[in-house]
């Protein structure tokens, strides 16, 4: 219900002038912007088959990668340029990963160096704690921010911040109801409320 609540709030605060189609689009954009600021964070496991493929898929929902743990070691991020200068054949190495390289954020994957050549234990324990007692050997724990787009919902206390930001975007856009003063005031109120949550 959260997206509907936010869009209703946008409609109320704009006295029905906001275009529902663009407001819907700006809702998604605002949620993604908040995800880039790490307001929504999660952690999950990733497994390896041990064949030495250096590419590790992060998942389409990952916005920022905040931490990557292989087995029990948090890997260092390295740049491709740095790796190329150390060893031009770094992609062919396999063993126990020590670092990861994010080549292209949009691909939602990272390259492990060296590539994992140990298969993850595919069996989770029975405790219901994948990041605790059930954590399998040679698996990875990924900490990341994500955008809670429907059916996921942002927290209730963020709804007003999001609605005000949507209003700011909607009334900045060239349209028959554009209003820069209103948009700036909505933006300022959104920033004020968000700042109070920090």
């Amino acid at each position, binding site marked *: 219900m959260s997206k509907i609540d936010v869009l209703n709030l946008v409609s109320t605060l704009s006295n029905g002038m906001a275009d529902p189609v663009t407001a819907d689009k700006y809702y998604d954009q605002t949620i993604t912007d908040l995800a880039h600021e790490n307001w929504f964070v*999660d952690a999950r496991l990733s497994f390896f088959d041990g064949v030495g493929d250096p590419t590790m898929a992060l998942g389409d929902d990952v916005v920022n990668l905040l*931490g990557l743990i292989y087995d*029990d070691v*948090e890997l*260092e991020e390295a740049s491709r340029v740095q790796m190329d200068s150390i060893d031009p054949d770094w992609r062919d190495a396999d063993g126990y990963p020590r670092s990861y390289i994010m080549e292209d954020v949009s691909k939602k994957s990272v390259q492990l160096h060296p590539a994992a050549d140990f298969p993850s234990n595919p069996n989770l324990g029975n405790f219901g704690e994948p990041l605790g007692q059930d*954590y399998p050997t040679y698996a990875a724990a990924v900490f990341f921010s994500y955008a809670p787009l429907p059916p996921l919902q942002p927290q209730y*206390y963020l709804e007003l911040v999001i609605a005000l930001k949507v209003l700011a975007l909607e009334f900045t856009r060239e349209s028959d109801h554009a209003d820069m003063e209103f948009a700036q005031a909505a933006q300022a109120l959104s920033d*004020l409320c968000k700042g109070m949550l920090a």
Partner: protein
Amino acid sequence: MAQACGPLIDRVLQRVFDPAGVGTTRAQVRDLLSRAQQYICCAFESQVVSVPLTTQPTLQVYDFASIAPDILKLKSVRDGSRDLSEIEFPRLKQIDNHWFGRSGPRFETFSVLGRNILVIHPQCPVLNSVNVIYVQQLPALNVEGDPVNLPDDQITLLVKLTEALVLLKQRDIVHLQPLLADLTQEAKQEEAAA
């Protein structure tokens, strides 16, 4: 402490020169009050509560939802009478890149990641417990008799913030701008005091 929201709706509507609630209904003002009180509560840490958390063996990562459903901002973690030191998440790796698997005789630090994850470090091999201290979300104001659980000295700011939202709705930017400047200044003073 804890006054009903009905009289606050009257105050907001009088301040925006719409005492009858013609341009903005009383229900709309109540909804805005309900939302605005969360920001005041968080900024001033008005409602701080403590909840026990049973820590599981070898588990360091806890979702906020598993601790309490109404966390607005996590403030601290206490092990008995000892406050754990807060650490930024990236610093865990700088101190020890094996932090995820490290266990110890007692908890030392905690880290908050976003608004969803609490890390308590190092892991403890047996069941244990800590107290989590957090700023609590205030209950929604569903009817005019519902109480606003903020101290009296913060009610004025709550009314001002709600007034600003109603002025935005009324497109009364002339009256909104000085109010916004005032609110921003007060929020900065609060930040500096914190």
